[in-house]
């Protein structure tokens, strides 16, 4: 385009010179014939004529006309859009929302699944470890990474040739002593090759050198840029300073001094959210807890993941193991670095951090953008109703169809440009927002508007511009064609034209219905979640997982430890109440009275200490709470959630009914002999946070017994301060020496459960709000389009009325057509909805993807819109004087 302009101006200058030389020669010739200069100049000028006219007519010959025309169309379009600020705002904003959301989601997908890892040779980086299999409930086996020992790693290093560098990365507990409190850090231990494999050049200082890994070398640490900025405010004098680290969380544990030798740039972030790296010193890990290691390696040029895997498998078979621990390695796992970083992502489509979840979201936002494009196109078309005349006149005056199409494209382009610019701003904010969502941050996925995302936005906007122009363009070109055939194209709606616009309407109704059902289902699911969401009060709750299954300890030891922990927690200032609980995914069997109707289902059986309902503020709906004697005797009683009650005794009083609980989840159709038979004594609200912990949503609580399972403490505090959380942590630290082998309660945190729910709700709400806007637009667009198609028939209706038709029969005629279109559109839309809801299925937990209320409601709404949109303009048409209707133009 710039080149074109430049050529245009050069051409213009050349022609000026050509004219000047023409004039000069004419003057010279006259002077040579003996005329005076003045006379000659005047005569030559007169002969030459108006220079501007010559210039303009000649310029037309250059083939640059389209450039001028586009400039003209652009001015015309801008003027028209400014004259209709309401339309412009609605169109641009709906596109902005669509483009913004699509670009944001694309940025997330790009950051998570497309963008190359920021390392040179990223495609040759692999992570390797041994794997074992473990039996999970019900006889199923699950593969898990079992790490790699230093000895095995040494063998790998020695005997393989597929790699040109390899290092061991070990994650071990390490704590930083600060303000009378130990803070857990993520400081993996790595070998000297680590940074060269990742291609990391230190920002300041140095990386890890081979001499750092000698057994008696001084301990050194390299910091990540983020940690350096946070803790040392980017102080360059940090090099050489000591960092006091401990290996356990106890304040009394011995400190080791590490010297800071360098800072690595931000892009070096392996294995995810590392705050720094410790040089691994060879030799026995004296006094350290066992860590988990894996190998990081770079494939030799020409080697593939498969060839490396084959070689490593062969090496692995040669290793004989003296010591078989609790988990025997059964194989190896060789993954690309990206696969490694993305491993452990849940396959839960609601979560933003799963590949499928991102794909579903991208599909949803793209679909909404599509609707927005079609709607804006429709609005343009509806607006062009009064333009048919203009088109007819222009065609009669010789305008080409391409010329008309060009003008519509420019107008669509203007709207798309406006929408796209706002959309990019929306996306800029959107990526910042999504980056702050915990799920993504935890995975180290940082979406941002980079060059590729910007390019995507530009391509998307161009596609949108073409899309917007497409519908009205088709229609206008057809109008132009009509006017060739007949002098007054609008006496009646021609057969062809009515047919095609009818087809368009059917498509529109179908698309709107598809969107409506999708949004409706999401909305219903959300309302359901919301309604159920507050049966407990998650504010100011701290969840302290024990992370410890008292393996091999006697029941007495466990009971003692827990009693002690409870007593100490209660003494902490700021702690309001505490409950001890054990959570167990179980098979439950209801209802036992009728053996023919016995049903197995999954249930979360929670063993609780006294005061559980009060502590979590879960309401008791019926029956009674547990009594002291229930706890004292471990009575076989249970309180079930109202969901469970409603599902299994919908028409009966569940109090007094029997339920059988079998620990562990299996597929046995009937209870095992050792199952607990419990009597229901009460019904409580739904503590549905358990779903977020991965437990079945149906819930049952029973007095604490020696069950096995995930356990921990729910601590209600006031106020919810960092000091209280720290005090809780300290309490557990001093409790050590109890039967714990590993201290994962250090992760005491502010109710993760609630946060997850809140995030889920937030993203769902955003989607819902978005869908609501789109539904509104779809309804408006549809109304506009139908009303326009009826308004087109004003003259026809006028003729019918003039010929004596009754207004009732005319109305019937028009609305019958609307009804027919609506029926066809709804049939089409239902088919589309089934496809869409197939995609949404995974997002719906409690709502059926074919929910009849949503489907029927959406269809009714659209049918109503179509009828109202055909009826109102038709009635208006029957009421006007036929003579005026005939003159309408």
């Amino acid at each position: 385009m710039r080149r074109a302009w430049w050529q245009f101006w050069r051409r213009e200058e050349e022609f000026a010179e050509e004219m000047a030389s023409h004039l000069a020669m004419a003057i010279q010739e006259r002077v040579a014939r003996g005329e005076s200069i003045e006379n000659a100049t005047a005569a030559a000028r007169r002969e030459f004529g108006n220079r501007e006219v010559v210039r303009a007519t000649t310029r037309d010959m250059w083939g640059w006309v389209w450039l001028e025309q586009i400039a003209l169309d652009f001015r015309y379009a801008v003027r028209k859009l400014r004259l209709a600020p309401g339309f412009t705002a609605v169109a641009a904003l709906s596109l902005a929302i669509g483009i913004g959301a699509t670009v944001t989601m694309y940025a997330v997908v790009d950051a998570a699944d497309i963008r190359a890892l920021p390392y040179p040779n990223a495609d040759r980086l692999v992570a390797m470890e041994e794997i074992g299999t473990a039996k999970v409930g019900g006889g199923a086996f699950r593969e898990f990474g079992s790490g790699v020992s230093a000895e095995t790693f040494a063998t790998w290093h020695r005997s393989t040739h597929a790699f040109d560098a390899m290092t061991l990365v070990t994650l071990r507990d390490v704590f930083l002593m600060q303000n009378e409190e130990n803070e857990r850090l993520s400081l993996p231990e790595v070998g000297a090759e680590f940074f060269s494999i990742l291609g990391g050049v230190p920002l300041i200082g140095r990386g890890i050198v081979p001499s750092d890994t000698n057994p008696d070398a001084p301990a050194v640490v390299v910091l990540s840029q983020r940690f350096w900025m946070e803790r040392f405010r980017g102080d360059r004098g940090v090099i050489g300073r000591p960092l006091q680290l401990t290996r356990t969380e106890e304040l009394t544990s011995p400190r080791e001094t590490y010297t800071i030798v360098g800072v690595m740039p931000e892009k070096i972030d392996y294995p995810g959210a590392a705050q720094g790296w410790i040089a691994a010193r060879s030799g026995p890990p004296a006094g350290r807890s066992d860590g988990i290691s894996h190998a990081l390696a770079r494939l030799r040029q020409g080697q593939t993941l498969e060839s490396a895997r084959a070689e490593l498998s062969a090496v692995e078979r040669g290793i004989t193991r003296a010591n078989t621990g609790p988990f025997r390695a059964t194989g190896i796992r060789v993954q690309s670095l990206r696969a490694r970083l993305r491993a452990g992502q849940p396959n839960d489509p609601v979560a933003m951090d799963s590949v499928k979840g991102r794909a579903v979201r991208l599909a949803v936002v793209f679909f909404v953008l599509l609707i927005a494009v079609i709607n804006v196109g429709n609005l343009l078309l509806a607006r062009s109703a009064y333009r048919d005349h203009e088109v007819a006149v222009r065609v009669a005056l010789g305008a080409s169809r391409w010329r008309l199409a060009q003008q519509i494209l420019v107008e669509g382009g203007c709207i798309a440009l406006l929408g796209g610019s706002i959309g990019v701003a929306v996306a800029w904010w959107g990526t910042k927002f999504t980056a702050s969502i915990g799920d993504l941050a935890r995975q180290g996925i940082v979406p941002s508007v980079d060059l590729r995302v910007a390019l995507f936005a530009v391509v998307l906007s161009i596609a949108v511009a073409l899309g917007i122009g497409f519908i009205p363009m088709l229609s206008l070109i057809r109008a132009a064609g009509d006017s060739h055939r007949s002098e007054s194209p609008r006496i009646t709606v021609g057969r062809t034209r009515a047919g095609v616009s009818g087809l368009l309407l059917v498509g529109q109704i179908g698309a709107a219905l598809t969107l409506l059902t999708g949004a409706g289902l999401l909305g219903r699911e959300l309302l359901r979640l919301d309604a159920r969401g507050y049966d407990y009060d998650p504010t100011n709750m701290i969840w302290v997982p024990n992370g410890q299954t008292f393996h091999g300890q006697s029941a007495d030891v466990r009971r003692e430890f827990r009693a002690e922990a409870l007593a100490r927690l209660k003494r902490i200032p700021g702690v309001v109440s505490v409950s001890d609980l054990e959570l167990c995914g179980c098979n439950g069997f209801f209802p036992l009275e009728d053996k023919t109707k016995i049903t197995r289902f999954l249930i979360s059986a929670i063993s609780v200490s006294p005061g559980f309902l009060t502590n979590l503020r879960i309401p008791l709906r019926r029956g009674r709470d547990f009594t002291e004697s229930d706890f004292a005797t471990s009575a076989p009683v249970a309180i079930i959630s109202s969901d469970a009650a409603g599902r299994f005794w919908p028409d009966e009083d569940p109090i007094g009914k029997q339920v059988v609980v079998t620990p562990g989840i299996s597929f046995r159709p009937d209870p095992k002999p050792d199952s607990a038979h419990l009597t229901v004594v009460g019904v409580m609200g739904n503590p549905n946070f358990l779903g977020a912990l991965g437990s079945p949503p149906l819930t049952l609580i029973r007095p604490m017994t020696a069950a096995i399972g995930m356990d921990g403490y729910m601590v209600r505090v006031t106020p919810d301060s960092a000091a209280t959380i720290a005090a809780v942590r300290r309490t557990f630290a001093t409790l050590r020496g109890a039967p714990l082998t590993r201290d994962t309660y250090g992760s005491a945190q502010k109710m993760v459960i609630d946060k997850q729910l809140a995030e889920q709700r937030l993203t769902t709400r955003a989607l819902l709000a978005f869908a609501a806007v789109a539904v509104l637009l779809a309804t408006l667009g549809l109304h506009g389009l139908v009303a326009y198609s009826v308004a087109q028939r004003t003259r026809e209706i006028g003729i019918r009325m003039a010929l004596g038709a009754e207004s009732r029969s005319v109305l019937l005629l028009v609305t019958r057509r609307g009804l027919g279109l609506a029926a066809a559109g709804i049939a089409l839309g239902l088919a589309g909805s089934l496809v869409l809801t197939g995609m949404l299925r995974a997002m719906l937990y409690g709502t059926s993807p074919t929910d009849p209320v949503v489907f029927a409601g959406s269809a009714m709404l659209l049918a109503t819109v179509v009828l109202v949109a055909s009826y109102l303009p038709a009635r208006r048409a029957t009421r006007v004087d036929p003579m005026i209707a005939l003159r309408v133009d």
Partner: protein
Amino acid sequence: MPKKPAHQNRIEMLQGTLDLLVLQTLRWGPQHGYGIARMIQANSQQALQVETGSLYPALHRLERKKFIAADWEVSENNQRVRVYRLTPAGKKQLAAEQSWFAKFSDAIASMAKPPVGESDR
């Protein structure tokens, strides 16, 4: 450009004629715009006055159709002038237009029974 005369309006016909005259003139060798105008004038013995407002659009149109090509040269008076010359495609076009014009003028002549020799000698 050879179109059926029936589909041409008056302006197009004149333009077509001017195109023919320009191509005919350039048959004698490269020439600049002023020179072309003077030659047409001289060869028609002042009967045909070529307006610059018609000449230059015609020249630029023929150039775009690649019937003629243009170069900047320096004239004997040391002036930069744009000189047009006939291209091979232009020569073919000239032949086609000549035969079309012959038919056209015959048709006109037989209709109008003119005093022969006034404008076409």
